[in-house]
Each structure stands twice: as C-alpha cells, then as structure tokens.
C-alpha cells in the first residue's frame, strides 16, 4: 500500500473543489466521451458471504435522484471505503444502511436492501433494532453534553444491555479500551465529554457506537474534522476493529481509503462506477472515471 501512497496526492495538497466544477478542459472533454451506463458497475461488486446485499437501490429527494440503480454486496468483516467527488451520493447511500434518512421527509428509497437476508426497509422492520445492529459515527464528533462515562453508557442503558452497574462499568471500560481511549480518560470518566480534544471526542463517539456491540459500523467521513495526528489514531483504530466488525467508511481522502479498506467503491453522480480490491483501484483502476479521480484530475 505504501507504493500507492506515493502515486496519489496527499490530503493537504488536495483541496476540496466544488462538485464537478467545470475547470479542467481535459476532464470536460473526457466527460463528454465517457458514458456512464446506469446500473453497470465494473470490478467485483458482489460477494459470496454478504452482510449487506443491496440490489437496484434508488434514492431520491423530491424530484432529485441522488442514487441511481446501485447494486453492491458488503461482505462480513470487511472494511469497504466509499470514495468519490462531493455530491456523488456516497453519504446518502451510507445513511440508507441504517435508515438515518428516515427523518428527511422527502427522501425515498427504492430497491432491495438486505441485512443478513432481511429487508432493511420492510415496513415491519424495527429501526431501533436495526440501528442497534448497525451503528454509525458521524463527520463531526457529536458527543452528548454529558460525562465521558455517560456517553458510552448511553447505548447499553437504553437497550437494557447491562443488568448491574458492574456490567455497565465493564462495557464502558472495554469499549473505551477498544477505542484506544481508556488510558487517556480512565481517571476522568466523570469529566464532561465536550471538554475533550476533537480526536478524543471522535474516538469517544466510536466507543459509544461499539458499546452496543453492533455488527456493522458506518463511518461518515470520521476524520474530516480532525488533525493529522488524531486522524492517524482513528485510522489505527479502524484497522484494529476490522477484525470484529463490518465497517463501511465514507472518505474524502484517498490515502485514508487506501490505508484502511479492503475494498473501495467509487461513486460518481449517483452511480456506482467501480468496486474493486483497494490496491487494484489505486494501482490499476478499470474505469476511466476512477482513474481520472484518483490521479486528481477532478474531485
């Protein structure tokens, strides 16, 4: 993976551009020539042992189609990264996986989304239970304005996962340990969480998510608000967690995708253009659009 790192520009040199701004004549020319065929994804989108089996997924906000006919499998215990230019629909797609789009009135999801063979969008399906199994970590750290302990204990409490105080203490400790935060905070568990540094807050949010022992953790650009050192720590954490959880991570940083993920999915204008082994995507992308993106021609 190190070899890939040198071929793509780093985060700092890749300022976020306006979505698909027409600046680069080469890109512009390419876009005219490159036809995206709806529902066609190159690479290896499917898996033998899928955790999520997603078929012909369409998402629209009112009249705007945000996701166009995407089919993808997410395998058990894999780390999959969603990359693509801003506004390409990767966050929208991620939020479908635990129905966080439900609170948006105009949002409509079509297609079949299966988690372990059960339909996520079945009307009889219980969101609470779904979200207990599919946790989420957000772009900006969002600890509750409570103590560190209470933040982690919140999930187990509402779900009734601990019968005794000692059980809860145990869950809190192990979650904080898994999040690599235990040693930093064990003496100040009663301190308020909003007083922590940004990186610590984000790891606390991860600890909070794993305290309910989810099977899947969705991460929506978890490091975009963090400095490089904090980012490194979170990435380290993701690598460790990949042993026990299925992780879906949306990221703007291709370096990050390259470092943490097994597979990488490239989204473009609501289409899923390519899914492949991560090192394949970054060394020999099959699709032209993927190639122009990772070589920094647009983004």
């Amino acid at each position, binding site marked *: 993976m190190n070899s890939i790192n040198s071929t793509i520009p780093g985060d700092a040199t890749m300022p976020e551009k306006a979505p698909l701004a027409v600046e680069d004549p080469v890109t512009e020319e390419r876009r005219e020539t490159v036809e995206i065929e709806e529902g066609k994804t190159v690479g290896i989108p499917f898996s033998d042992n899928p955790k999520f089996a997603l078929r012909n997924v369409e998402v629209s906000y009112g009249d705007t189609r945000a996701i166009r006919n995407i089919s993808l499998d997410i395998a058990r215990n894999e780390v999959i990264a969603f990359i693509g230019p801003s506004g390409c629909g990767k966050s929208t797609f991620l939020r479908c996986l635990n129905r966080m789009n439900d609170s948006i009135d105009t949002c409509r999801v079509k297609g079949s989304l299966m988690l372990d063979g059960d339909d996520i969008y079945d009307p009889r399906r219980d969101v*609470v*239970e779904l979200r207990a199994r599919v946790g989420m970590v957000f772009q900006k750290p969002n600890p509750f304005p409570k103590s560190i302990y209470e933040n982690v204990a919140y999930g187990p409490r509402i779900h009734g996962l601990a019968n005794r105080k000692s059980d809860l203490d145990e869950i809190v400790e192990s979650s904080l340990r898994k999040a690599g935060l235990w040693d930093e905070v064990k003496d100040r568990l009663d301190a308020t969480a909003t007083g922590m540094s940004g990186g610590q807050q984000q790891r606390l949010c991860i600890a909070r998510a794993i305290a309910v022992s989810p099977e899947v953790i969705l991460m929506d650009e978890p490091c975009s608000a963090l400095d490089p050192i904090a980012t490194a720590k979170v990435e380290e954490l993701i690598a460790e967690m990949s042993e026990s959880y299925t992780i879906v991570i949306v990221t703007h940083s291709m370096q990050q995708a390259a470092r943490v993920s097994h597979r990488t999915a490239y989204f473009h204008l609501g289409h899923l253009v390519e899914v492949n082994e991560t090192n394949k995507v970054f060394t020999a992308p099959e699709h032209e659009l993927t190639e122009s993106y990772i070589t920094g021609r647009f983004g």
Partner: protein
Amino acid sequence: MSNSSSQVEIVRQSLRRRYRKERRFRMYGIAAIAVALLSLFILFADIIGKGYTGFLKTTVTLEVELDGDTMYLEDPTNPDEIAMADFTAPIIAALQTHFPEAEGSAANRELARLVGSYAASDIRDLLEANPDLLGTIQTMEFLAHDTVSVYVKHADNPRYTVRLSERQQQWVDELMEKGVIETGFNDILFSKGDSREPANAGILSAIVGSLLTMFVTLVISFPVGVAAAVYLEEFAPQNRLTDFIEVNINNLAAVPSIIFGLLGLAVFIGLFGMPRSVPVVGGLVLALMTVPTIIISSRAAIKSVPPSIREAAEGIGASRMQVVLHHVVPLAMPGMLTGSIIGMAQALGETAPLLLIGMVAFIVDVPDGLFDAATVLPVQIYLWASSAEQGFIELASAGIMVLLTFMISMNALAIWLRKRLERRW
C-alpha cells in the same frame, strides 16, 4: 461477535416496553396541545356565548298620544313648563291601551318600568325640537327597561335573575307576541359612550379613546424604536455603554406593565403636572412600554439585511448614513412594520398601567382631543366586567369581541405584510 446475537435478542425483547413508552410520550404531547387548544376554544365559546346578546337591544314601539293635558304641558317652547311636565304619562297611557285592566298607581309604576328611564326624555327632546307635534299621535320606539331586556334575552338562563313581577312578565310576554317589544341590532353599542344604564351604554367613546391613545403611542414609539435599533445595529461602538443600553432594553421588555403605570403616575402626572385620564399620558406610558418591543424586532429586521448590500453601497462611495437610510432601513422596513404592528396590538390590549394614570373615569362623551378625559376599550371592558349590574356583563363580552376583532385583524395584517413584503435572501 459471539455475544452479538444474544444482544440483538435482548434489544428485541426490550422493544415492546420501549415502544409503549414512546407512544405514551407522544400521547402526553398531544394531550398538552389538546389542553391548550381546548382552553382557547372554551375561552372563545364562553365569551361569544355571553356576549352575542350584547349586540342586541330590546325596544318597545308605542303609539304615543302627545296630549298636553296628561303631560301638564301647554307650551313646549317654554323651558319652565318643559322642566315641570310629566313625559312619562303618555307612555303609561299608551301601554294601558294594551292592558286596560292595569289601573292604580302601583300598576302604573310597573307599566312605566317596562321602558327605560330615557324614554321620557326622548319625548321631551322630540317636543322641544318640534313643538307643533303637541296633541298628535306619534309612533315612537323606546329602549326597554334593563330588567325587561334581561327577561327577554335571558329568561331561561339560570345565571340571570329576572327582576320583573309576575304581572310584568305576563305583560312582556303579551307585548312580545304583539310585536310591540322586539329585539334588534344594538346600534347604541357603537354610537354612544358609557352610561349608568346598560341599555344606553356603548363603546364609541372607548374606541375613540383607544384610537387617540394608540395614535400617540405610534407617533412616539415607532420613530424612536426604529432610530434606536438603527443606532444599535449600525453605529453603536462596542463598549460598555452600548452593552448597558442593550441590557436595559432586554430587561424593559420583561418589566411588568403595572410598573410603567407607576412611572407614568410619578413622572408625567406627579413631576410634569400633566392631567389625569387623558390619551396623551396614556399614549406616552404605552409608548415607553412598546419601544423595547419595537427595538428588538427592528434589530432583527436590520440584521437580516445581508452585508453584501451594505458593501455594495459603501463600495460606490456612499457614506455610512446614506447606506443606512437608502438601503438598510427600506429593506428592513417590512420586518420593522410587522414588529411594530404586533407591539401596537399588545399596547391596544393593555389595561393595568392605564388604571393607575386615571383612565378609569366614567366617560360618557366621545373625547375630542388628546388632552380630553378618555377611557380605552380594555379599561371599559374591565369597568363593565366588575359592575354589579347584570346587563353590563353582556356588554363587556361584546366589547371583548370588538377588541379581539381589532387585535386579530392587526395580527393578520402583520402576517400578511410579512408574507407580502419580506424578501428571502
């Protein structure tokens, strides 16, 4: 991972209990809203139920023979004779034509009490104006006595006591059948001032008093409020004086209104020796109360004007004052007007401070100037509501309906204005 499936099981088991709680919580919310809306509904229903009869008057129409002999009146142009004449006699006579069996002074007294006490003076006024009508027969419409009015309108309402004798009740029933006693639209309510008699009392002088008071309030509070808002948003330096002014404004907006009454009493009446009960003082006091509201809403309106407009105007060399007067204020005007109308509506309903500066006087005449003793609509309602006379209760309710109509139209105007004029940036 091994314990994950067991955890899912735990979560699943907890769901029923948790959804029950969720439903209960939601029910609390609905119940709270229901309580609030029900209170609103009961309030309106109660006031309309009590007050719609306030818009009705009870009249007695009689063929009155203006006979000089019964009235002891020979020359209606002679003021001394007018003063001594008995104008009740023809009314009794006219009623006796309907009830020939009613004789004797007791019966006469009871008959006379079927019409209001102003009936006699109606005849006097008629004869004073047209002396040649003496000796003719005229069809005249009199206001019924309050007790009759209460009986006609509220005979089956247990909250009202009928103060008519058995005999009078029979007469009234009969006269109603004959169409002599009728109810009609109460034009007096809108054409007269207060009176000791409910049937003869109206809200006209109170409405005029309110308008005069509101005029003073508007003339003072709107320019001052807007100017203060402009200063604080556009010119005020960041210093302690400005902070102090802001703290003052925020606190004044929450000071109880009766305190402003004390201020008016001590400063305008005590210190400056201004007269009591006049619209000018009332308007001043209400203006002081309204200014903070107008400042706060005007500041919000000014804040919503985007800085790009200011920059654009400054960029072509306009002075700060020109930017403000030519661009910011006109653009913020809809918001300022909306806030001011709402502030004025509040002032219109205000009662407590006006009690203290003496606007509780008994005002019969329509005030004809800012320095003329007056009362205002809410105070008139208060006076009637606390009156012992039953007939005033329905008038108070009717007054409330008029007041609420004013206020709701003002608020509707504000909403309409906001929708119509406010632009979104």
